[in-house]
């Protein structure tokens, strides 16, 4: 293992690091938005949209991100729709993450007990009021652990972007290895770089889980 080689590679890894962070961030925000929309449409049983949402969730959950990316990057241009690699990556990540987030929110809403819902009905709350004051506050708290797992999962999934040549962390490492044949050094940096993102994040998310459990439910 040569420190000099590691040092020389750091500026390139720095760029890859930034890109991984940025793509993850946009992808996660987008996934939360899509997931929220799908879960609300399903909760309120909005006709048509509800069916669309469940078909989407099925497709998204049962196809690998790799295939989704190939589709966006290689198949869509044949149909005359062309995105840049990064946009493909973001769309793919949101397509994947939206369904995971949707299932997380839906799981939270469903986790609110029947007797809570009946207590709400018994004081005359309308369907919307019941959702607003009882089901959503409790359901969001219940969905936090699933959301946290999804966030970590999506960040790790960005490593697949390398197949469409987005120069994120994994792609950077594989490129360097291809050029200089120093896999030990570059893989070492790669692991450290992911750990720098994921370890603190996972600690923060665990704290958040504790907080919503004891926070929103009073302390």
């Amino acid at each position, binding site marked *: 293992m040569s420190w000099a080689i590691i040092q020389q590679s750091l500026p390139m890894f720095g760029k890859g690091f930034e890109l991984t962070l940025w793509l993850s961030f946009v992808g996660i925000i987008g996934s939360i938005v899509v997931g929220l929309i799908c879960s609300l449409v399903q909760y309120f049983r909005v006709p048509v949209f509800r069916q669309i949402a469940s078909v989407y969730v099925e497709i998204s959950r049962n196809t690998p991100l790799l295939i989704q990316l190939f589709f966006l990057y290689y198949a869509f241009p044949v149909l005359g729709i062309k995105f840049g690699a990064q946009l493909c990556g973001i769309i793919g990540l949101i397509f994947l993450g939206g369904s995971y987030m949707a299932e997380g929110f839906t799981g939270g809403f469903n986790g609110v007990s029947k007797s809570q819902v009946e207590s709400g009905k*018994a004081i005359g709350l309308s369907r919307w009021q019941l959702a607003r004051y009882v089901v959503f506050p409790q359901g969001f708290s219940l969905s936090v652990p699933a959301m946290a797992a999804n966030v970590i999962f999506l960040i790790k999934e960005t490593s697949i972007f390398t197949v469409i040549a987005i120069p994120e962390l994994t792609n950077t490492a594989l490129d360097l290895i291809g050029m200089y044949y120093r896999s030990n050094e570059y893989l070492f940096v790669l692991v450290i770089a992911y750990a720098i993102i994921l370890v603190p994040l996972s600690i923060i998310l665990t704290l958040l889980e504790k907080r919503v459990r004891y926070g929103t439910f009073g302390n």
Partner: protein
Amino acid sequence: MADKVLEVAHLEKFYGKKHVLHDINFSVDQGEVVTLLGPSGSGKSTLIRCLNGLETYQKGTITFEGQKIVPTEKNWQQLRQKIGMVFQSYDLFPNLTVMDNILLGPTKVQKQDKQAARQEAERLLASVELSDYANAYPRELSGGQAQRVAIVRALALHPDFMLFDEVTASLDPEMVRGVLNIIEGLADQDNMTMIVVTHEMNFAKQIADRVLFLQDGEILEQTSSKQFFSNPQTSRAKEFLDSMDF
């Protein structure tokens, strides 16, 4: 003749193929306290849950304050402001303080003035000796305290009619009396019309004007409290009373 607040006629309820309520007929007068007694599984909960629309029924009619209820969810939603219900599991909303639990109905459902609603909530909390807990969260309360708050939450809407479903069944013995006292107060001082499902026989005997005895989804007896406890007519009711040990 007293005004009938509630009339149930030929009510039938099925869970799928299972027939759980058979031709239920009874009425409740203004200010009357009816206790609904019967063994576990006889259909007491199902019956009173039909009376505020938490369960659907397949046949029969329910008439409330002279109006035959058209059982749509929208109508029930309106009626639940008039027909309060308290459950065994009390189920306060854990995400809201005691005060906000109580205010939800008056301010959001009935759009009452916030200040007035709060004053009323404070008065009600004081009446159940929980003034100090207005800003507490439900998980800080004992079962008995939570159940008292649940009763206040229902009363805050100023219902005309109350349904109590075994509200002391999940409480520690030392908490039971406090909750029963509140219900007695409602009956005696506020002259509240109510149906009470309970396993507390001494309480039932004391509070009830009339008893409905339910067995396997049928009303087997429907008599004055005095008559039921001193001289039950059916052998089933006799067996039931003997088994209750009080």
